[in-house]
């Protein structure tokens, strides 16, 4: 049973073009390790460094997004890392219809869904010049309230995703929703 289950799981991933999958708590150390593994795998498959660099950028922005904002957390309070919290997310990297993609999914607060959706819809409607202008404007401005970075992660994703990106939401529980985004190079 066990091997059969795992075979079925892997076959499903393969059907969807997934070459790399991680589900669990994400940390910066895990990001660095996954980044190195994905870079190595891609360097074997393609000599196009632009693809490798673009995919790496999509990976970093999406995973750091989970690390900073996932609504599924566990506070660890051992003596070395007091108060540090771990954020849960699911990451896949793969290739579909000849296009490489990075996808991430994590829980978000339901109250944040409409703001996120509006923001991503807007980004999807902007052309390269408009994205560049918004990127610089955002980098120059004060970081948005509650942001732990520049607040420009999704703009970076939109700029790097040469073949666009999809996203959606579905119900999780009373207060939270699942959020998923998949960006294509």
């Amino acid at each position: 049973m066990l091997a059969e289950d795992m075979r079925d799981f892997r076959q499903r991933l393969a059907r969807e073009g997934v070459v790399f999958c991680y589900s669990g708590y994400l940390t910066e150390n895990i990001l660095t390790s996954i980044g190195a593994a994905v870079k190595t795998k891609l360097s074997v498959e393609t000599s196009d460094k632009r693809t490798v660099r673009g995919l790496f950028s999509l990976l970093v922005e999406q995973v750091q997004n989970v690390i900073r904002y996932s609504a599924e957390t566990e506070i660890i309070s051992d003596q070395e890392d007091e108060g540090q919290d771990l954020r849960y997310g699911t990451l896949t990297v793969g290739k579909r219809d000849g296009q490489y993609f990075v996808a991430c999914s994590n829980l978000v607060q339901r109250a944040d869904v409409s703001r996120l959706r509006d923001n991503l819809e807007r980004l999807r409607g902007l052309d390269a010049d408009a994205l560049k202008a918004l990127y610089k404007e955002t980098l120059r401005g004060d970081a948005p309230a509650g942001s732990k970075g520049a607040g420009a992660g999704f703009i970076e994703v939109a700029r790097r995703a040469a073949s666009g990106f999809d996203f959606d939401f579905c119900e999780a529980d009373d207060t939270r929703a699942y959020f998923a985004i998949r960006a294509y190079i």
Partner: protein
Amino acid sequence: MATIKIAATDRSPEVDFDFGANRFLIRGESYPEDVTEFYAGPIGQLEAHLTELSGAEIMFDFDLVYFNSSSAKVLIGLFEKLDEVAAAGNRVTVNWFHEDDDDNMKELGEEFGEDLETAVFRLVSKG
């Protein structure tokens, strides 16, 4: 005069600020866990130093392999500061290094460099 030297890690760049020579360098990867924590110290000291200069020759090398959007915010702030220092009567040269085949890094340099009004901006291909 002091120097600041920080060795590169997998996700943070080498920093080499030579305040005596007014030569400054950031080189490598930049996607640290906490961008503010990484950059606040050295850039705070750098800004305090630059503000006091007049008639100085200043050179800043950006030699980055990759940087994330949070680091981009720090870089754009640094470009603004360097331009201010140039406008205040210093000769400022900003060198932006990129691999010959890294169009994206080249374009990012151009995007940041096009806003410099007084500081001299140079794109440098590493071949």
